[in-house]
C-alpha cells in the first residue's frame, strides 16, 4: 500500500524538473508527466486570478475521489506537489521537508544548473529515506 503515489517538482517557469512515482497505478511516461506538470502550473496560476479572496497564492489542496493533491509553492516560485491516497495526513510537512532537502542536496550542488532537471543522486537517496520514513509512520497508525 503506497499512500503516496507520486511527487513532482516544477521550476518557476512551469517546467518539470523532478518526477518520482511510488505506486504502480497511474505510472506515466516522461511526456505525460511533463504535460501534467505544465497543466498544473497553469491551473495554479489561473486559480490565483479566480479566487474570490484577494491575496490568494494558488491551490494548496485538491481533493478528488481517488486521490488528494497537495501543493507547496516556495516564495521563489518553485512548486512541490504530491499525489497521494485520499485522506493521507502530514503531506504539508512532507512537502516542507522535501523543500529543505531540495535546498540542501540540489541547490548546494555547484554542478546543478538552476531551473534544469534534477539529476542529483544525494537528493534521490535522502528523498527516498524521507518518503520511506513517512510510509512507515503512516503504517504504524
Amino acid at each position, binding site marked *: 500500500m503506497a499512500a503516496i503515489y507520486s511527487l513532482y517538482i516544477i521550476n*518557476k517557469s512551469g517546467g518539470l524538473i523532478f518526477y518520482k512515482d511510488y505506486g504502480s497505478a497511474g505510472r506515466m511516461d516522461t511526456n505525460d508527466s511533463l504535460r501534467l506538470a505544465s497543466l498544473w502550473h497553469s491551473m495554479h*496560476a*489561473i486559480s490565483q*486570478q479566480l479566487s474570490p479572496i484577494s491575496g490568494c*497564492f494558488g491551490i494548496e489542496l485538491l481533493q478528488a475521489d481517488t486521490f488528494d493533491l497537495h501543493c507547496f509553492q*516556495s*516564495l*521563489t*516560485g*518553485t512548486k512541490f506537489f504530491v499525489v497521494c491516497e485520499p485522506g493521507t495526513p502530514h503531506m*504539508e510537512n512532507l512537502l*516542507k521537508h522535501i*523543500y*529543505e532537502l*531540495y*535546498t*540542501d542536496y540540489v*541547490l*548546494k550542488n555547484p554542478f546543478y544548473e*538552476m531551473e534544469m532537471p534534477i539529476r542529483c543522486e544525494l537528493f534521490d537517496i535522502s528523498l527516498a529515506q524521507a518518503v520511506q520514513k513517512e510510509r512507515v509512520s503512516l503504517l504504524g497508525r
Partner: protein
Amino acid sequence: MAPAAPKSGDVIFASVDRVNAELFTLTYGAIVRQLITDLEEVEEVNKQLDQMGYNIGVRLVDEFLAKSSVSRCVDFRETADVIAKVGFKMFLGVTASITNWDAEGTTCSLILEDNPLVDFVELPDTCQGLHYCNILSGVVRGALEMVSMKTEVTWVRDMLRGDDVFELQVKLLKQVPEEYPYKDDE
C-alpha cells in the same frame, strides 16, 4: 494546520553545522587574492565578486526561506528587516541594523559593525578601489531577485577604507512578479 512560526536567526545559526571562522576568512581571502592576480584590474575584481555573490544569492534564498519559515513580507521595510535580523545572523553569525530609510521606503542602509570576512585584512595602496566584501552585495541582490525584487546594492562605507562601519545601501528598483502569458483580451 497552523504554519510553523518563523525562527529567529540565533536559533537557526545554532542549529546548523558550523565551520572554523578562520578557515572561512582564509578561504575568502584566497579567492580575492586569486581574482586580483588573474584579473589585475580592481574594477574587474569587484564585478567578479558581485557576480559570484549573485550566483550564491540565487541559491541561498531558498535555504533561507526553508530554514527560517518566514512568511511573505508585506512591504520592503519588512524585507530589509528580515534580511538584517534573520538572514545575516543565520549565515554570517552577525546581526545587521537598518537605518537611513528614504521617504518612499524603497532605499535603506544595512549597517554591519562586525564582519567575519575582513578579520585580519588590511587593504594595500595598490588595491584602493577594491570593494573587498563585494560578494555580500551580490548575495543580497541575487537573493532578492529570486523573490521578484530588482535591487541595486552598493557599498557606502567600508571599514577597510577607514570608515567606522560597513554600510550597504539597498535600493529597490522595482517589483517584478511572475508574469503569466495569459492575456485577458485573447
